[in-house]
């Protein structure tokens, strides 16, 4: 798949001396949902802000849909829609007026049919004549998305789109993002909610301390870095593992009432039946058995933690 955004050796050092991005290389494929994960201050917003023209890069180059974002900023920016993290709306203007403004600002001729479609898709049509200050937080967030979509962008940046949004609305927003992707829009989202990335993203990039530490397909990331956990609840507590099981990687937990076994997702599962057989031979009775696959959150925490250990 071709790259719709390519970032090459991008660096940003703020005037105070803080280096927010260090030699960032990244390619976003056309038509994908890309999730950029990272702890606070990792450089996510700086990266997005540079691509959208809000922050000047210190070095490096960014191409958006084949256009250099600095030299050919008009063509590049007209392809991009941005929904920033902070809720920012004009308090007194009507919803529809602010969406019309956004479309015009991005150089597009008036198109009432498109504006109606965007407002309807985001369930804001009934509120079109309402002053924006009377909207709820969730509606304001949707209005910002409507404004970003008003000029029919090919690339949409969502910076923490569901921060402070209730569960139901978050689900609606996920559905909306999927519909957008189906219509051919490439979506790049940053998020703190790993669940969100796990739910929606095709590919995931992890950024920490201004460096991209990993970019991979979500599925292969989960496969290669994911772990599984088998948890057995015992009928009688064990003081220690019997010698016959000393060569296994079993761990005792919950004051001897639980046995935990962790293994890679890719591992052949056959050895679990061996393990259970050996437990039976050792006379260990269990009354419950659970398995759990590690979440993207576990993978992410592990990655960032490892990176911090390396840099320390």
């Amino acid at each position, binding site marked *: 798949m071709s790259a719709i955004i390519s970032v090459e050796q991008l660096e940003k050092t703020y005037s105070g001396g803080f280096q927010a991005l260090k030699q960032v290389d990244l390619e976003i494929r056309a038509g994908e949902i890309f999730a950029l994960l990272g702890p606070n201050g990792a450089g996510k917003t700086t990266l997005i802000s540079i691509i959208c*023209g809000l922050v*000047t890069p210190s070095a490096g180059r960014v191409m958006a849909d084949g256009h250099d974002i600095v030299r050919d900023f008009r063509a590049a920016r*007209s392809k*991009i829609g941005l929904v920033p993290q902070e809720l920012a*709306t004009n308090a007194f*203007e009507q919803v529809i007026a602010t969406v019309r403004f956004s479309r015009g600002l991005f*150089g597009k001729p008036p198109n009432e049919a498109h504006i109606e479609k965007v407002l309807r898709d985001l369930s804001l049509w009934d509120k079109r004549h309402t002053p924006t200050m009377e909207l709820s937080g969730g509606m304001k967030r949707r209005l910002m998305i409507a404004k970003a979509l008003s000029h029919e962008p090919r690339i949409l940046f969502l910076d923490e789109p569901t921060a402070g949004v209730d569960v139901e609305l978050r689900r609606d927003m996920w559905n909306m993002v999927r519909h957008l992707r189906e219509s051919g829009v490439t979506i790049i989202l940053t998020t703190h909610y790993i669940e969100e990335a796990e739910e929606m993203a095709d590919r995931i990039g992890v950024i920490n301390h201004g460096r991209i530490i990993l970019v991979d397909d979500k599925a292969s990331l989960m496969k290669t870095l994911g772990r599984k956990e088998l948890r057995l609840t015992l009928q009688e507590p064990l003081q220690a593992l019997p010698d016959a099981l000393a060569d296994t990687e079993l761990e005792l937990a919950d004051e001897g009432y639980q046995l935990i076994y962790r293994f890679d997702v890719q591992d052949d599962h056959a050895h679990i039946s061996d393990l259970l057989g050996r437990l039976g031979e050792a006379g260990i009775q269990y009354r419950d058995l659970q398995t759990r696959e590690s979440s993207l959150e576990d993978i992410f925490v592990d990655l960032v933690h490892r990176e911090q250990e390396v840099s320390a």
Partner: protein
Amino acid sequence: MNYYSIRAIYIFEMSRTFRTLLQSIATPVISTCLYFVVFGSAIGSQMMDIDGVSYGAFIVPGLVMLTLLMQSVTNASFGIYFPKFNGTIYEVMSAPISYIEIVIGYVGAAATKSVVLGLIILLTARLFVDYQIDHPIWMFSFLILTAITFSFLGFIIGIWADGFEKLQIVPMMVVTPLTFLGGTFYSIDMLPPFWQGVTLLNPVVYLVSGFRWAFYGTSDVHIAISLAMTLGFLAIFIALTWWIFKTGYKLKS
């Protein structure tokens, strides 16, 4: 030139005026009319003529200029400050629009509002004071030129300001005193020689004097000097605006 972008900013800014007609138009018109009533109709009849012009008529150009300067600075500074304040400036900064187009949109809208207001005040003054306009084209051109020039100043203030207090400082603490002391209510010939010299350091003198010349054909300083000074201010403010965008001052990190 990105026509739709400029149009979007211009219409958005103008719509704020129409939404707040009372504050944008009625308030400045009423407060200026009070001057015409008090100094023009009431006290004016007791004052002697200046340069052959009745006192009520003499103060008309200065008062129009006072409102024009105040409104240009206030409108333009508020127009760009408000998106900075509420955070919506991100949209303008990420749009496929050049700095020149941003300036045309904001400064153009602010100047338009000031010119419209200036003309309304001029028409309203006619109800209280009998005045003439010897050079209407000059008068109109000077009105537009001054509105644009001081809308640029307002734009610069709006970008510089990081609070509503700073937004008010320049119009209230600088523009108003300079206008009152810039020959709005008197001819500078009436001052002692020393204060005449000091007054010539006040830039507003050249604006009021030039504007008054368009009405009555008489002025404190030559019309060519007034015009040159106004164009000079415009050049300074354009250069400052250019510097702001070139460096991203308070707009881009």
